[in-house]
């Protein structure tokens, strides 16, 4: 049997807008992936610790508040520092066009804005998952 893709859906920082994260979590689960949802108010350390504990293939970050340039980057750098090079990092939220390429450079491979169909995210994960 093929191993299921394991995804951590995480809400870093104080932002309480969890509609998007919950919808994506459900859609990934319905697409056959194993999903762990962190709940709210996670520090970068907490997210990465959970990613290690749960041995996930993908970390999905969600933020509406606009703090992505700090908080997404914190998580991505810590993942790198811990040597989790085979973990795919993606993110979504209210993210202006000009920030997207900067996030790519930090290792956040997929960045998804408002109106993205869940189907696109599922496809992106399946095509880019590293292990």
């Amino acid at each position: 049997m093929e191993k299921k893709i394991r995804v951590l859906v995480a809400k870093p920082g104080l932002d309480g807008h969890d509609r998007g994260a919950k919808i994506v979590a459900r859609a990934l689960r319905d697409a056959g992936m194993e999903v762990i949802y962190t709940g709210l108010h996670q520090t970068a350390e907490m997210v990465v610790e959970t990613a290690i504990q749960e041995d996930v293939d993908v970390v999905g970050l969600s933020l509406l508040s606009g703090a992505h340039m700090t908080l997404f980057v914190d998580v991505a750098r810590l993942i790198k520092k811990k040597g989790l090079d085979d973990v795919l990092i993606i993110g979504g939220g209210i993210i202006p066009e000009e920030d997207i390429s900067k996030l790519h450079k930090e290792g956040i491979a997929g960045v998804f804005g408002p109106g993205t169909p869940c189907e696109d995210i599922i496809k992106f994960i399946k095509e880019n998952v590293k292990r």
Partner: protein
Amino acid sequence: MIKNKELENIKKIKSDWEKNYYMPHVKKHPERRKKFENLSWNEINNLYTPEDVAHIDYIKDIGFPGLYPFLRGIHPNLHRGRLWTFRQFSGFGSAEETNQRYKYLLDHGETGLSVAFDYPTLYGYDTDHAMSRGEFGKCGVAISSLQDMEILFKEIPIDKVTTSMTINGPAAIVWGFYIANAENRGINRRIIGGTIQNDILKEYIAQKSFIFPPEPSMRLIVDTFEFGYKEIPRWNTISISGYHIREAGSTAVQELAFTVGDGIEYVKWAMKRGLKIDDFAPRLSFFFNSHNDFFEEIAKYRAARRIWAKGLKKLGAKKSRSLLMRFHTQTAGVSLTAQQPEINITRVTLQALAAVLGGTQSLHTNSMDEALALPSEKAVRIALRTQQIIAEESGVTSTVDPLGGSYYIEWLTDKMEEETYQYWDRVEKLGGVLPAIEKGFYQREIANAAYKYQKEIEEKKRIVVGVNEYKMDEPVDIPILKMDEKGEERQINRLKKLRKDRNKQKYERTIKALRKAAEDNENLMPYILDCVHSYATLGETCQVLRDVFGEYEEPAIY
């Protein structure tokens, strides 16, 4: 509404019309969908007639504006007299930047202020707290002390203009900043007017900026009710909010049922404390969303007024002021698209029109760029102008409740009221509002509705212009708001200086007194005000309450 004989006649003609005209027509010209549904998945018929409203007693169920059950509006002349307040929710970066934005909005015809705070402020953390990282000024303005509040309202006539503040967990403290600022400016606190959101139930249900567990949170809220009617009589001490419940994904019916249900819950808690309902109920206010389904929204506002009036009467309210529901409306942020952002202006116009036709007291119109970033000056000006066009040009304000008596609207208003009571029964069976929150009932209902809605968009059962139909590949080309990069540093330096320069003894004394009062059962507002006046920061004051009350953690349900 109609005599039996006439009704029989209508029924007969309608049945003939369906058989001999409608059905043959549809056979030849099929309808675009098998089933037409609104945003609460209620099926909508092709036509409504007197038959659908035959059970309604005009005097008892609909009545006149300004009279019980207030279905048609809370004032006899509604917008023919005073227009609703043009109140744009606004705040970003530092207090200095937001102060400039307020002046800009007032200069362009805004008639009330509404403060958006950043996340650290919403959680009762100072800007320099570790948890505040990355969030300074992002979702609103950062206010860590009375000093920041002084800057925020500098040169703004707070003795004349009213201010609404979207603050919940630390509402009592931030309200304290506002009151203290007025007092320091020599303004009598009995004349200042405004609103604190202060609605913790919907935080647990949807918005998620809670700090303390339910019991002490409810205690703090009742403290503000009591202090409010005694000391700050023109202040709305709560804005019971459906807005965030809706934004989190609920249907219109859920928004209505959960919000008015929360309202009743607050009244019960205050009465349990021994407050008299007619003392505090006149200062309770509401806040609703205005989403895409035009008539459903209008019916929702009308139903809300009637449900509230009936509910408060049942709880023993006698004064007319206690029974009438005053509410603010904001157009649906979640309906805005990042794709082709200019078309959001049209969405906002329709949503704002529904709010006005539904009899709102105050309105925020979203800016077209809000699915991309916080609004630019130009975008927010267009949003404000949208309200001014509705008010001055459309003619919809000339008569009160112009859609009252519409067979469809009255049928839908009744249906939404009925479904509200069905939800209340389900909550009651779970043991009431707080047990239902603890069991994740509301959270699950909302998540289910949000997921269903998203799936329908992806399956194209629902069309979102620019997203799943009528798409364009052109890049988005509108200016994005830029914030002052030095704002955070300036704020942190200001905080450090404040902590160094303030009267240390006074600070320590007031903080200590607050701790003791929190451990006892006293009303905390006077103690909080003392802390504020001694320039204790938001984070320091909130930490005392965190120590005594503990913090709430929610179950992570998806």
